[in-house]
């Protein structure tokens, strides 16, 4: 799997959404599964998969699938 596929699979797994229902415009709180607990699970699973540790500010800024990708690229040098 490439990094984008890994990134997507973490979303699907952490937020328990079916891959059919998943879309790249997904935002925080848009679905019930992406609530505060879902957010922390998502963050922790991304940390585990990409072997990084998020700074608190980045956890707060991580407000959508796209924004998360941007943070990972610019700050944590994950290539998509």
């Amino acid at each position: 799997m490439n990094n984008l596929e890994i990134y997507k699979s973490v979303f699907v797994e952490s937020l328990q959404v079916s891959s059919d229902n998943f879309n790249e415009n997904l935002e925080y709180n848009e679905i019930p599964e992406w609530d505060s607990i879902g957010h922390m699970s998502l963050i922790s699973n991304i940390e585990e998969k990409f072997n990084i540790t998020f700074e608190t500010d980045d956890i707060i800024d991580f407000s959508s699938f796209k924004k998360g990708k941007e943070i990972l690229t610019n700050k944590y040098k994950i290539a998509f």
Partner: protein
Amino acid sequence: MPIASSLLNKPKLVAKLKKFYEYVNKNDGKVGQKTRGIDLNFNNACNLRCKYCFTNSPKGDHVKEYLDIGAIKRLADEADELGYFEFDLQGGELLLQPNKLFEVLEAIKPERFYMYLTTNGYHLDEKMAKKLADYKVSRVSVSIDSMDEKIHDEIRGRKESWKRAIEGLEHVKNAGMDPYLNITVGHYNANTEHFKQLLDYSKNKKYKTLLNVAVPSGMWQNAEEIICDDKDREYLRKIRKEYKNLVRNIWNPFDKNHEKILGCTTVNRVYVTPIGDVLVCPYVHIKIGNIFEQSLKEIIDHGFSIKYFRNHSDLCLAGEDKEFIKKFMTKSGQTIFKPALAKDIFSKEDFIK
């Protein structure tokens, strides 16, 4: 953009939640002695007469006493310092006195906490839900006893309780807060169609379902027949995997396989009464201090010096550990206002030096 009550608008909460998460992860998924939440009952008055109320509010117990606002502010400041990230207001019934409630919320400063309310939902209309969200309340929990309106109203002792509670949950969702449908589960209803209807309703509505196991305290004191047995617990483990929206305080919320046990959170989540007594949890009426006499840190340290609360337990001490219940909960007629004192009820050997 996320609303005011959202996690992403609460940086201090995120920092504390992250620390909690890291602690739990390093501790094999267990809560250990990490501070988690404050359950605050600042006044015990209620408009309903629930048959199983654990605060004895239907008996009028201490309903005229209020915890002082200055003391609440101090408590919240100390809790924040100690890393507590959840703050749960409960009663009594909070929405009976909205002005008082908003005064309390201002004192707590909800921007620092995952702030939530546990209510019977009777006065939870659309306007109230919006106002709560504006005050940065992140979650509202409403207890439902049955999908049969008559049964719920009968248990609650007031007509229209069910209808208003069900409508209230929808208002919570529409206001952008986390809607939690609370269900009490005991030996009498686990694995019944009646219980399943509640689970399905909450799941279909896309709410979270909080399961509280039935506890022999308050109005149910000595009712040991309500306690979940091994079979009931097996059933709860099974539905945890089936219904991904299920929450129990004892379960690890970060476990994507829905299996790990965080452990009983006595002392990790303390309960503060309208007279400032600090009990180890809302259901175990054992006092470990008073906020007018000690600092919260001193109280928590004292609580964790007792082996039952310091050591990990896979079982909820109040609702599942029959030995603990028999030994420490049902003997001396404790209530939230007449708790047993930790120093009296435990022996020397029960304290860790």
